[in-house]
């Protein structure tokens, strides 16, 4: 790397504003500066609302009205760039700046072939004729590692897998030999294994072609794996900037420290996540104790007999044709899965998307009926063979919390009604007043203020909603809670709080948790025992520590090696 060459991107004191309908102004980015040298990957990280995407869009010339640049400058390859117009003297967007978007499923036009979409930029920017453009398109596909590139040229986007589409998007970004590529969350929509390939590809491009890459992401692991330098943003402001190693290992700013501390580690298990601020301990603990007293528990402590046992579970999905008799397509989502959960433990189910883990959660909580096998709760069949219609205490015993905090609360109901619904339905309170006081206890137990009951869900942030979702599940006084990806749509600092809350609740009330997650680090931090799933089957099942320290199955090993984590930081691994 030549430190004295012209930086491909230099942002200086950038301020981006959105005038609001009521006349005030929302500042999305304030006084942001950063510099990217050729061949350098510069990560822009932060939680949602940090302003990182706004910077990405501004550099791509996609800052949309009424957004405007209030002050500051952007220079691309040393030339001043007018982001509102999307132009700069001597700089052509698309030729000198390439773009990679988050979701490869939607960034390609479904009506045109891959070849069409690769060629158009070259024909406009490089004035290539059709044959030359086509030849170059083929070359590009080869260079991004798409198998059978000649055939893929004539394909339409929908005929490619997600990873292949993202490679096509990268190829399109590279088509005119850009100096700078802006990659906005390029791997967020992808599975771990594909993610790792795409990240390698990006690293190669930077190294071999000397392209500067602005990598916008929220994933610290990704940053650690490929970035040279990193800038941490929070609420539109740059918090800290520096080399990846320096920032990740020794963050100076408080926020940066908290943020990095909140990232679950895969290499070691911590008791709690370090989080910023106080979590309303006092009141919450009292409330939890009260809850625990109310739930008439038969026995305390970890019970050796399994509370839940899944035996040979199979689930088929059929897409039925609309005419009677026309056999639909059959798909086996879960294929002979057996495991058991002991009372009081946290059991983890982990796997990539589509492996069947959510289906199992649905079967356990009674949302889906199994095709074969059965599920028993304390020896009583609750799904599959011998299962009766689940009513009363059996229903009550197993509750669930969900992935998306924005859709898991009915936006047309007040929090009070949402939380009291299970209480009233299961007749856990003698009167409405008693139900109301129970609701108040629940709200306190998850660390919120009691007046939340009067409000509607939209008044709460994602993390708060997830707390309320947990409160609702607790309201039924369950013995087992199925947690389906409870933190995967949350920012990392919020995730840490929610995971802490779950741990605290488990400790306080002796709950059993079945945790479904794709995130190995989260599983390691939370679970006592873990089962790894692939394509509807469990490939490995073990005590958590055993599994992470000494994985037996090659798939588990592969997964563990691919996950980008903070403990493997670029530069360090090379050094080590």
């Amino acid at each position, binding site marked *: 790397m030549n430190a004295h060459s012209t930086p491909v991107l230099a942002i200086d004191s950038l301020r981006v504003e959105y005038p609001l309908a009521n006349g005030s102004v929302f500042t999305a980015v304030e006084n942001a500066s950063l510099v990217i040298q050729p061949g350098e990957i510069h990560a822009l990280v932060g939680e949602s609302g940090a302003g990182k995407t706004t910077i990405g869009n501004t550099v791509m010339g996609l800052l*949309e009205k009424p957004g405007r640049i209030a002050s500051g400058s952007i220079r691309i390859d040393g030339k001043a760039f007018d982001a509102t117009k999307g132009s700069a003297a001597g700089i052509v967007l698309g030729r000198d700046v390439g773009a990679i978007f988050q979701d490869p499923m939607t960034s390609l036009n479904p009506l045109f072939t891959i070849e069409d979409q690769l060629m158009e930029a070259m024909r406009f920017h490089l004035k290539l004729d059709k044959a030359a453009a086509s030849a170059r398109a083929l070359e590009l596909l080869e260079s991004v590692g798409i198998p059978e590139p000649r055939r893929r040229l004539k394909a339409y986007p929908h005929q490619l897998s997600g990873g292949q589409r993202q490679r096509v998007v990268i190829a399109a970004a590279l088509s005119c030999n850009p100096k700078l590529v802006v990659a906005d969350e390029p791997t967020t929509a992808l599975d771990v294994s594909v993610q790792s390939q795409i990240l390698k590809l990006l690293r190669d491009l930077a190294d071999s072609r000397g392209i500067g890459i602005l990598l916008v992401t929220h994933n610290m692991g990704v940053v650690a794996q490929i970035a040279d330098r990193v800038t941490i943003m929070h609420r539109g402001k740059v918090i800290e900037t520096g080399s990846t190693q320096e920032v990740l290992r020794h963050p100076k700013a408080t926020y940066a420290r908290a943020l990095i501390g909140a990232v679950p580690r895969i290499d070691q298990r911590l008791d709690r996540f370090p989080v910023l601020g106080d979590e309303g301990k006092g009141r919450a603990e009292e409330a939890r104790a009260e809850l625990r007293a109310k739930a008439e528990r038969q026995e305390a402590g970890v019970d050796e007999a399994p509370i839940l046992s899944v035996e040979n579970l199979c689930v088929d999905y059929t897409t*039925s044709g*609309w005419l009677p008799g026309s056999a639909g397509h059959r798909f086996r989502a879960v294929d002979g899965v057996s495991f058991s959960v002991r009372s009081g433990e946290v059991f983890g189910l982990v796997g990539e998307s589509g492996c069947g883990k959510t289906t199992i959660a649905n079967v356990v*909580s009674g949302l889906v009926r199994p095709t074969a096998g059965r599920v028993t709760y304390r020896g009583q069949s609750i799904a599959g063979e011998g299962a009766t219609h689940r009513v009363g205490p059996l229903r009550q015993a197993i509750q669930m919390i969900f992935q998306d905090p924005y859709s898991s609360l*009915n936006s047309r*109901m007040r929090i009070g009604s949402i939380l009291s619904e299970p209480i009233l339905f299961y007749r856990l309170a003698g009167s409405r007043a008693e139900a109301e006081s129970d609701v108040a206890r629940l709200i306190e137990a998850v660390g919120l203020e009691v007046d939340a009951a009067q409000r509607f869900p939209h008044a709460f942030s994602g993390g708060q909603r997830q707390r309320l*979702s947990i409160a609702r599940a607790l309201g039924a006084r369950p013995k087992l809670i199925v947690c389906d990806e409870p933190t995967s749509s949350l920012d990392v600092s919020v995730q840490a709080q929610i995971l802490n809350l779950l741990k605290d609740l488990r400790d306080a009330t002796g709950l059993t948790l079945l945790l479904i997650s794709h995130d190995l680090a989260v599983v390691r931090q939370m679970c006592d025992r873990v089962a790894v799933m692939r394509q509807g089957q469990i490939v490995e099942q073990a005590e958590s520590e055993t599994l992470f320290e000494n994985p037996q199955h090659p798939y588990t090993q592969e997964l563990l090696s691919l996950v980008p984590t903070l403990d493997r930081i670029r530069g360090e691994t090379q050094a080590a």
Partner: protein
Amino acid sequence: MKTLASTPSLFIRLGAPISVILAAVLALFLVACALLASWIAPYDPTDLASFELINAELPPAFTADGDPRFLLGTDNQGRDLLSAMLYGARVSIAIGGGAVLLAATLGVTLGLLAGYFGGRVDALIMRVADVILSFPTILLALLVSGIARAIFPGAATAEWAPIILICAIAIHEWVQYARTVRAATMVETAKDYVRAAKVIGLPVRRIMLRHILPNVMSPVLVISTINLAAAVLTEATLSFLGVGMPPTYPSLGTLIRIGNEFVFSGIWWIALFPALALVTLVLAVNIVGDWLRDRFNPKLRVKR
């Protein structure tokens, strides 16, 4: 009345442009006038004893030959045109509103069932909807009223015609509700709050009515506004074609049909005023509906 008065402020809160607020006020004013016809109309045009043939075809009061008793003149029967229009608007709005209500009730119910249960229930309801959709509103409405008249001679009377018109219009309109609500219900059913309700074990009825229904209502309201305008137009068209309201109990469409016979005779007001009233009413409702659609259709909202 309270809701009527508070609606404009609601629109202001929703950030509606001034034209939409004006249209909403105008629409409410027209609807209020029509609903209050029996109090504010100078005469009762449905009372046959109240008008004199001798007063027929008097021009509006503001013209040279006008009679001050009749602000907008009289029709060919000597009815006060303003009164006839107020009552006519009431009939039109009642039929339009009735049709929308019936269609919405039917469509929302079927849409909820289809969307929630899926499978055969869904297939059955949606196939019926497809068949109905194969025929445009106006044709189905004509068929229904035509058949009703053929098998039931009383179908054209003032008591029965509105009911038949309501059914004739609603038989097509419910499909749109059913489809929209079905799609929305499918989306909502897959959402976690419904899964949560299922995990609690709430009965299906309660899940559908308490949880899903309120969440699928905003498109229903938007459709209803636009459909109200459409239903009023359909009623007017049917009346114009002569299978709508009888002349003794005219709707705006019937008035235009009657007036149309006189447009070349220099008796322009019988057709013009009802036509203006109809277009104004429908336009005002459409402006509001159009804005609501843009407002509540996330597809059309400008993304940040």
